């Protein structure tokens, strides 16, 4: 019988231990791990109704107060006192239920009068989480905090942020770039800002480093390729192998303790620390191959050549008709000289190598280059990581080093990274404990520019014409093909240089060194009161270099031309930033009467960030021999100071306090307050106060709960409210400054000039987010199924906003707070953890999460709707207006395609159209499609798209634009499956997004039907004639403007961005139990193989539907425009512990 066996084995263990001589009674034990660890001097009772007394301790024999002891199936119950003692009346044979939050519940059948019960921590519940400045048992949390342990992360990815993808409910972690030097985009519970960054605050080992460093004067700037730590994210500098846990404070009540920097949520990263015991040495090695995860289907040379020909011929026809010349199809045979003479211009010229003028037929091109194949290569990635940790005589250490060599899939790009970390803890005395963390990260990047093809090779490889080769016969690059004139004519190709040559020859490097130094001393003043000092220093030094050689073409100017040589330039930028932090806290912990528990903290912190940037550009290079700023020409003006040069100091002073209170492990309450003074704000609004309150009720610890949801089930309800702030704006935003001097000319001399810069608002203050959160934590099925759910309602106001003002002020906008603005984020997040199978040999677990957030601009506080251009050049792509979410896609809606049969009706409409006033007579009912005005350049032709006339006035203009799609998902989700059988383990992770749209800004070039660059292969299905009508969706080709082209943004350019992605598959083999392994001194060894980004299911045509061209800008989300595509990584690795 199982019960007996357990009992026997228990006795055996107890006697073997030899220190249980005083054991008085042996209770009949139902639960698995009751031990009788201590004697209790009590009186024995020998009656049927007995008075049972006892002590409850934890596994370290420390008495536990406030533990619930109840007689099962009765109303009798009590709690342990401060020394862990209890007394209760019970009948012999009754079952006592002993439960305490954070511990595995025990049931003991009453047999003896005095019992000692040792409760075992419920590892899951006992986990402590960091809540900022304090740690708290997970079970005591009243806010919405997501916690991820290192073991739950997929650590084959190069950055921890990528490892978080799909793991956290309520937090959207997007893989927006596949560059080896880029991180992910993290957004917690939607967007509550318009102008200020919604990036979360990062707190690494107690050191808040996010918001303060992100906004030096170095963000972007001419020729620098955009130094932007805000998007790089501080998190990527931490070696993923060093991570112990990551907590994300999602609700405002939890985040409020970080005050004015916390409205984007707080990501708290805790690194591994040493434990007392034998030293442990660990070595990990991983090698892998990265490949382009998804290739975009583009036209081949022949398909492209046909679009090119169609585009030129149709343009030629449009131009001649516009000039009043009667068209004849024989004109398609006009040679380029005739076309030029008739005014067709370069946009009507056709290369004679691909077009037979007399027969008007395509000549199949001799070259067929796949530019993506040329640009993207398989990359061999290697990672080494070693660490040793241990502790003795009150000193504990964990030291690690890592090296990663990660070439990018885009040829020439890479990151090499070295990480070093030393975490030391020491107990100087019983009262004084110190610890320090030192971490250093060195990175060396080779980068490429992204975005528009003139510098960005990624869009370049899509646009570049497949009729041109990559290399000459001698292996050198063929250059300037799109810009050159053949046979004396220009052809209006997009003037794009060979993208492979660009990637290789435009040298962009970035070398960074980041050091974080942290020292903490904790002194126990009296038993319940301790004082802590935390001093931190972070330095970041970066050198950025850029060189654009003389030997590439510059627009229409060919390599070697004076203009191309003049365009060569080098930039160099050094960033040095120093952040200092001091934090003084008093912590008071007290338990009263065994039931009341207080944990209070009060503190003061000060932080100062100094950033110093020098950025210069050198010009007038003679050649490329020395690709450095030192080789600039002698002429005056060869050396320029870039506008982002400068210093800045940001200071922050904070006072904070928080009280956590719990009663009887059933009721929890907390309140916090923080006051921040920030140098970013105007003198009239420098300080902000951020309070929070929260409460929790552990329903299942009530004596009346009676396992309502099943045996060992738990329920906890939580509610919170808090206020958090946002100060993510540039420094000195409250000051109107005089511009840097520039020049004007009098006579023939340069005179220095300056002027007042942008208007400023000296009342500038922080932006606030007030948020309510309610949640429940439930475990059922004997602890095998855990559910955590949260619902939240947030309101952001006092929005930091670059408000439009009349240019009569000399400025077009002013950074200010919109007092009456109201942005709502409401939503829920749900996390499920299930242990489906759990046996000795086989385990199978599932965890999943789902998040839905609804964003709505209730009020812009009197500001007018915001129209923003978020893709190519200046066309409007997004609107932010009342009643809709922030940053919706905005434009016209395609109503259909004009057919030959519509032309007669169009002519009838033309006859009554009043061009003076651009209108139709009142009451006139259109016979044909509505006409586009304002931007109509050629009359409607068969094969053109026409748009919905929303206001029904017969013409399509600005008034007919509306929201045409949402960049936000209806919901996002992630789930993981892990299977373990004996020595084998298998885990898979998935994430996805449903219902969001993507604006493919690349369409401006690769879906424009111009033939000026390559096109999506789908467009072979375009309208060519009534006989070849195509798919009815893609319009006719023309190099000149048509009524349907991309300059009038419509839903034609909006695609479904929903996707389902397998982010990781890992198969592992644990060789630890193999004797041969043990013989060589290895205590554990695991060998694994993994695939990151294994597959993505999506209808999106571009590389990655998760893209964000505008780097986290809230007003222009969801745009794809030449961003670094994702890699699929195949890796194998070994992890050994000695």
């Amino acid at each position: 019988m199982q019960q007996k066996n357990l009992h026997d084995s228990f006795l055996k263990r107890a006697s073997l231990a030899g220190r249980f001589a005083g054991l008085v009674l042996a209770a009949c034990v139902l639960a698995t791990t009751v031990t009788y660890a201590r004697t209790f001097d009590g009186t024995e009772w020998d009656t049927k109704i007995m008075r049972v007394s006892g002590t409850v301790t934890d596994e370290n024999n420390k008495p536990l107060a406030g533990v619930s002891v109840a007689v099962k199936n009765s109303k009798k119950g009590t709690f342990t006192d401060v020394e862990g003692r209890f007394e209760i009346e019970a009948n012999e044979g009754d079952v006592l239920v002993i439960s305490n939050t954070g511990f595995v519940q025990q049931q003991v059948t009453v047999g003896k009068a005095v019992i000692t019960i040792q409760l075992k921590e419920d590892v899951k519940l006992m986990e402590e989480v960091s809540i900022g400045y304090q740690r708290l048992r997970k079970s005591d949390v009243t806010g919405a905090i997501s916690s991820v342990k290192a073991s739950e992360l997929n650590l084959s990815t190069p950055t921890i942020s990528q490892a978080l993808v799909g793991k956290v409910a309520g937090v959207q972690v997007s893989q927006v770039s596949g560059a080896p030097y880029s991180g992910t985009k993290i957004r917690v519970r939607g967007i509550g800002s318009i102008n200020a960054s919604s990036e979360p605050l990062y707190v690494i080992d107690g050191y808040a480093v996010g918001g303060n460093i992100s906004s030096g004067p170095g963000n972007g700037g001419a020729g620098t390729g955009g130094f932007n730590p805000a998007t790089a994210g501080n998190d990527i500098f931490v070696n993923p192998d060093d991570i112990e846990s990551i907590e994300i404070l999602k609700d405002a009540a939890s985040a409020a303790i970080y005050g004015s920097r916390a409205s984007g949520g707080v990501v708290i990263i805790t690194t591994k620390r040493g434990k007392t015991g034998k030293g442990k040495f660990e070595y990990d090695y991983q090698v892998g191959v990265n490949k382009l995860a998804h290739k975009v289907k583009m036209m081949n040379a022949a398909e492209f050549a046909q679009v090119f020909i169609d585009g030129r011929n149709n343009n030629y026809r449009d131009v001649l008709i516009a000039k009043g010349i009667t068209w004849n199809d024989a004109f398609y045979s006009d040679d380029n000289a005739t076309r030029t003479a008739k005014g067709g211009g370069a946009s009507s010229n056709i290369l004679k190598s691909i077009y037979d003028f007399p027969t008007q037929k395509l000549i199949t091109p001799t070259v067929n280059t796949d530019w993506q194949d040329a640009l993207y290569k398989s990359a061999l990635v290697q990672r080494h990581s070693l660490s040793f940790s241990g502790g003795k005589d009150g000193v504990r250490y964990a030291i690690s080093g890592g090296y990663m060599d990660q070439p990018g899939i885009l040829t020439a790009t890479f990151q090499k990274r070295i990480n070093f970390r030393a975490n030391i803890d020491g107990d100087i005395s019983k009262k004084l404990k110190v610890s320090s963390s030192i971490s250093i990260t060195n990175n060396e990047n080779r980068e490429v520019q992204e975005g528009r093809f003139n510098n960005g090779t990624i869009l370049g490889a899509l646009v570049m014409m497949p009729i041109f080769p990559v290399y000459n016969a001698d292996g050198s690059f063929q250059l300037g093909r799109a810009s050159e004139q053949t046979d004396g004519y220009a052809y209006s190709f997009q003037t794009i240089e060979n993208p492979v040559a660009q990637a290789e020859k435009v040298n962009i490097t970035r070398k960074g060194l980041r050091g974080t130094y942290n020292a903490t001393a904790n002194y126990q003043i009296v038993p319940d009161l301790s004082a802590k000092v935390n001093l931190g220093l972070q330095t970041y030094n970066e050198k950025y270099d850029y060189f654009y050689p003389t030997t590439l073409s510059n627009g229409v100017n060919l390599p070697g031309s004076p203009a191309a040589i003049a365009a060569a330039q080098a930039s160099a930028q050094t960033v040095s930033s120093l952040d200092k932090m001091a934090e003084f806290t008093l912590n008071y912990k007290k338990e009263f009467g065994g039931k009341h528990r207080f944990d209070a903290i009060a503190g003061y912190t000060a932080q100062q960030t100094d950033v110093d940037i020098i950025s210069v550009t050198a010009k007038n290079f003679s050649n490329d021999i020395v690709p450095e700023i030192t080789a600039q020409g002698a002429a005056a003006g060869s050396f320029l100071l870039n506008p982002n040069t400068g210093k800045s100091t940001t200071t922050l002073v904070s006072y904070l306090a928080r009280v956590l209170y719990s009663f009887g492990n059933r009721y929890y309450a907390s309140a916090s307050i923080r006051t921040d003074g920030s140098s970013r704000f105007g003198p009239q609004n420098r300080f902000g106060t951020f309070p929070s309150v929260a409460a929790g009720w552990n329903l299942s610890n009530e004596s009346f709960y009676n396992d309502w949801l099943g045996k060992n089930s738990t329920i906890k309800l939580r509610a919170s409210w808090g206020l958090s702030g946002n100060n993510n704006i540039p420094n000195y935003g409250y000051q109107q400054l005089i511009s840097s001097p520039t020049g004007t000319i009098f006579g023939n001399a340069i005179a220095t000039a300056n002027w007042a810069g942008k208007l400023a608002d000296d009342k500038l203050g922080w932006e606030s987010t007030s948020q309510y959160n309610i949640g429940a934590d439930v475990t059922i099925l004997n602890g095998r199924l855990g559910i955590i759910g949260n619902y939240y309602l947030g309101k952001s106001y006092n929005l930091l906003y670059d408000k439009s003002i009349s240019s009569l002020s000399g400025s077009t906008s002013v950074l200010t707070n919109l007092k009456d603005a109201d942005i709502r984020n409401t939503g829920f997040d749900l996390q499920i953890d299930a242990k489906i199978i759990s046996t000795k040999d086989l385990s199978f677990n599932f965890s999943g999460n789902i998040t839905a957030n609804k964003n709505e601009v209730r009020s812009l506080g009197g500001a007018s709707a915001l129209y923003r251009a978020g893709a190519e050049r200046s066309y409007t792509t997004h609107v932010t207006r009342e009643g809709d979410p922030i940053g919706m896609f905005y434009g016209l809606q395609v109503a259909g395609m004009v057919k030959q049969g519509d032309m007669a009706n169009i002519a009838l409409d033309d006859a009554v159209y009043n061009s003076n006033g651009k209108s139709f007579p009142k009451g006139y009912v259109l016979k044909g499609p509505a006409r586009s005005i304002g931007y109509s350049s050629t009359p409607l032709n068969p094969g053109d798209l026409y748009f919905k006339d929303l206001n029904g006035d017969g013409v399509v203009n600005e008034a007919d634009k509306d929201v045409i799609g949402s960049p936000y998902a209806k919901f996002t989700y992630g789930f993981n499956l892990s299977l373990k059988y004996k020595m084998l383990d298998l885990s898979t992770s998935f994430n996805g997004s449903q219902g969001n749209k993507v604006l493919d800004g690349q369409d401006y070039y690769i879906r424009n039907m111009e033939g000026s660059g390559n096109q999506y292969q789908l467009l072979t299905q375009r309208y060519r004639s009534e006989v070849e009508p195509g798919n009815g969706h893609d319009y006719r080709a023309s190099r000149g403007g048509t009524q349907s082209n991309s300059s009038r943004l419509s839903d034609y350019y909006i695609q479904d961005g929903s996707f389902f992605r397998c982010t990781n598959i890992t198969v592992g083999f644990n060789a630890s139990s193999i004797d041969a392994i043990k013989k060589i001194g290895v205590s554990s060894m695991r060998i694994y193989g993994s695939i990151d980004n294994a597959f993505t299911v999506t209808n999106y045509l571009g590389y990655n539907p998760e893209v964000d061209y505008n780097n986290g800008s809230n007003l222009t989300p969801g745009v794809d425009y030449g961003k670094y595509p994702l890699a699929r990584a195949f890796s194998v690795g070994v992890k050994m512990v000695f």
Partner: protein
Amino acid sequence: MLGSCKKDFLEQSSPNLISVEQNFQTESDVALAVNGAYQALRSSNCIGENAQTWTDDRSDDVNSIDNQSNNGEPFQFTAFALSASNTYLYSHWVSLYVPISRANLVLSVIDKISFSSEVTKEQYKAEMKFIRALMYFNLVREFGGVPLVIDNVATPDQATALTFRATREAVYAQIIKDLKDVAASSLPIVQLAANKGKVSLQAANALLGQAYLTMAASGVDAPNATVNFNNAKTYLLACFNQKTFAKLSDIPYADVFDVAKKTTNPEIIWQIAYKQGDAIYSSSLARSNQAKGENINSLFTSTGVGGTISADLIKEFETGDIRTAFSVKYAANIAVKDYYITKFRDVSATASSLGYGGNDFPIIRYADIILNIAEAYLNLGDNANAIVYLDMVRARAGQPLYSTMIYDPAYAIKYPTLKLAILHERRIELAFEHHRWHDLIRFFNPAELVTYFKAKSQADYNNSPLTNISTKDYYFPIPLNETKLDPSKMTQNPGY
């Protein structure tokens, strides 16, 4: 810093730049800000040498055939298809207000600063008022009534309070008030060669005369039209009488644009100066107008078609006119086969093959003022005097005088009235100098303007649809970014 909770720890001021509040301490601080106002004029969105989109492109002189580039937005100007959301238009509007705000700032602080010479202070004030008046003059001509601000705007609330359209009358009243102050100031009559680009009394009188002429001709303060035409005549003649040459014909036409004579040529009253050979401050006109295979403008090797011209303008040039050969040339290259602009040339070695030309861009010159005088006389019914001034320009061009031309059948049919003859003369004399659109809206009321355009041949305009023009096009729309701030106070022009 540690442990400090002092107020000054939080009081951080930009270490890189000084705040506006603290900036103005001495005379030289004011001098830099005065230069700042001049600097703003150089933008192609304001009145710099490349500011053709709002003037020549908008008129019948220059026609882009490119309806695709830059979102088709520049094309909207030539196609009379402007929408209020056009971002080029908004940039133009903003760029006209930038010099105003810079001038306002100087004027708001200058009296608090002590100068070693009161004359310098007075001259600075005059220069700022001139620049402010010129900007309002362009705004009122192109947009009608606009917000009128003559104070420094230091707070957002102040800006909001001023965001309403003043009447055209109010704007003109301010222009005239400012320019009268300038004309009465101690500015030099003519600037020294080293100061070319700065305002002079010649320029003040010229602009004041033009302002009167325009307000009278465009129906502002209509009851006083005659008075205003007389005022125009008075100030234009005052400018004329300040000339430092004897006869216009003493100055060869080519000399006006000769880069070597740009600071000494007495015809040029006021210009925006450019520095030869300088990558940043040089003129790009010689380079950018040059067509492929040509070398008359610049040592720069062009691969494009150069500055494009409407066939309509080519037809306007008179045979044998020295101005024709100087202003335009036919490029025979197979990829061009069209005329291009040659009015701005700099083939010096200093300008180099990069085409960093030294051409100054004339904003006001005597031929312009002389024809304005002819126009003023015409409007006052004094045709005889009008013809005297018209003939000064024709004589310098080596063309027969007006009295001869009216007997030339072709000329008489094309320009049946003296008014059209003056307009014709301006079109030829001042081609590509960014006057044409302002001339058209001064010579014609909206209905006449539409008639004038519709009488032209579409074949002379490539793909810019002439038929698109309507009376609304007399004014630009008020940019959407401005009207949306307060649609009731920032009203839109009719028809948009």
